[in-house]
Each structure stands twice: as C-alpha cells, then as structure tokens.
C-alpha cells in the first residue's frame, strides 16, 4: 500500500523535477540559435545540425528522469 503510494506520487514528481533543468537548457540553446540566425541568416544550415545535436545531449537529462520511473 505504502510502496504503491510512493510510486504514484514520487515517480511522476521526480520526472517533473527532472524536466525543469533540460527545459531551461534547451530554451537557452534555442534562444541562442534564433539570435544567431537573426543576425546572420546564412549560418542557419550549419547551425541547425549542431543545435539538434546539442538539444539531444541536453534532452538526455529529462530521459534519465524518465528512467527513474521504472527503478
């Protein structure tokens, strides 16, 4: 009973907290990407790949939070 309660409250709460940091991180990366594209539109193509790679690296933090749901 108690274990079930811990899972239903604690797991999703951990997931929710884990998404805060990556949210801020990807937001900052996207802001920098938009700034750079606005200043120099021709740099969009090369930057796009780097942006997605960086977003993927940051995203891992949230996904590790998701993994803790099953532990």
């Amino acid at each position, binding site marked *: 009973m108690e274990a079930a309660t811990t899972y239903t409250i604690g797991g999703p709460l951990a997931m929710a907290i884990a998404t805060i940091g990556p949210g801020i991180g990807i937001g900052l990366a996207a802001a920098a990407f938009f700034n750079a594209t606005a200043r120099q539109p021709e740099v969009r193509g*090369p930057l796009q790949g780097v942006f997605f790679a960086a977003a993927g690296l940051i995203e891992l933090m949230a*996904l590790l939070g998701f993994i803790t749901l099953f532990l």
Partner: protein
Amino acid sequence: MQSHFWEASLYGMPVHVNTLIMVAVALVILLSITRLLTSSISIRPNRLQVFAEMLYDFCRSITFSSAGKRGDTFLYYVGSVFFFVLTCNLLGQFPLKIFELPHGELMAPTGDINVPAALAVGSVIMYFFFGLKAKGLKYFKHYLSPLPDLMAGQSLPVKITYAMFFWPFILLNIAEDLTRPGSLMIRLFCNIFVGEILTGVAHSASHYLLPIAVMGIELFVAVVQAYIFAMLTNIYISLLSEDHDHHEDEHDASHASEEETKVPSLAFA
C-alpha cells in the same frame, strides 16, 4: 512490461520475436527502396535518381559538417544508421494493432531497448575502428587527454604535480567509452518508447483528435532522433579519428563550412 514482447528462446538466449519481425520489415523496406531508387542510374538522371542523390547529399552534409572531406570514409556507416533508425522509428506510426500475434504486439523496433543497444555498440565499434585506422596505436593517447598538452615544455617537478592532480581524467576518459553508447541508447529508446506511451495516454483521454496531434509530434521526433543518432555517431567518429599532426584536415574543414553556407542546405525542419 512482460506482455509487450513475444519472447522465444534461441540457443538458450531470450529473443523478442516481435522486434525481430519489425527489424526484418524495416530491412526489407530499406533494401527495396534502395533497389528501386538505384535501378536506372545514368548520366542524365531521371526523377528517382535525383531523389536518391538528394538523400545522399543530406547524409553527406551530416559528415561534412564536422569532418570535411575526411568524412567520406565513414559516410557509409553514418548514412546507413540514419536511414535504418529513421525507418525503424517511422514504422511505429503504422496501425500495427491490426496484426494479431500469439503474444505481445508489434511496435517500433527502436522502442525495444535491444535495438538501440545494438546500434550504440555498433557506433562504439566503428569509432574504435576508424580511430585505430587513422592513428594506429597513437589512438590510445587520447585517454591521457589533458596531460600531454599541459606537460609540453614543462620541467619535471611541474610534470609530476600535473600528473598528481589530473590523473582522475584518465578514468573519466575510459568511462566515456561506456557513457557514450549508454547515452545514445537511452536517448533513442526513451524517445520512441515515451512516444508509444504518450499515444496510449492521449488515446485514453480522447478517441478522436488528440492521438492524431500526438502522432504528428511523433513523426517529427522520429526524424529528429534519427538525425541526432547519426549526427552524434558522426561526431564521435570524426573526433576520435582526427589526426592532430596533420593540419590539412582543418584546412579542408574550413573550406567545407564555406561551401556549406553557399549551397542551400537541405533543411528538413
């Protein structure tokens, strides 16, 4: 969790038959499309050939962005990984529930952790292979990574002090060989698996419009995850097969970036 897979035993090893079926389907689709696109290659290209060249150019833009012309040596692996992961991800969006299996159900093969794990191990093998091919035994020097640069031209006591303070970096560099495939695997698996769960949750909330919106997001995620997997594999390979003694490579890379800005990029999103 158990009910999602159709487990069978092959020489004492458990295998997931539904994942194997989907991987086989993905391979059949990929091979037949490749066969179709390259069936009539000529100097005057027809539409199929132009499309095939577009796909090739897209893969080449991935390797070109970080490695320049040197990237053509591992283009075949990065491109294959991109299209395989893309096909596997997109297969999950088909209405697979209409096929009845004895156990479990069909889903995107990358939603089973074994397929991303195999791909991640493949990436590690490839970056070891290309690193050793480009640098020989000097490849293992990168495990000492900050030390040789710091020690260059220093006296012996300073060198010993550096070694005392920076030896944990060697452990970190060795651990990187485990965290790289681990992060590649978890990133791909979680994104696709979460997509399946999210579609189910949306379906339980509303039967009509909501799942369609989630599946639209899933299409985007499928392409982006395939791109990220190929991009990171390419970055690891090009980083570790880079020879610091030859500076022509950097020259090539700078030229490549210039070309890249001139040619309109094949933006997908």
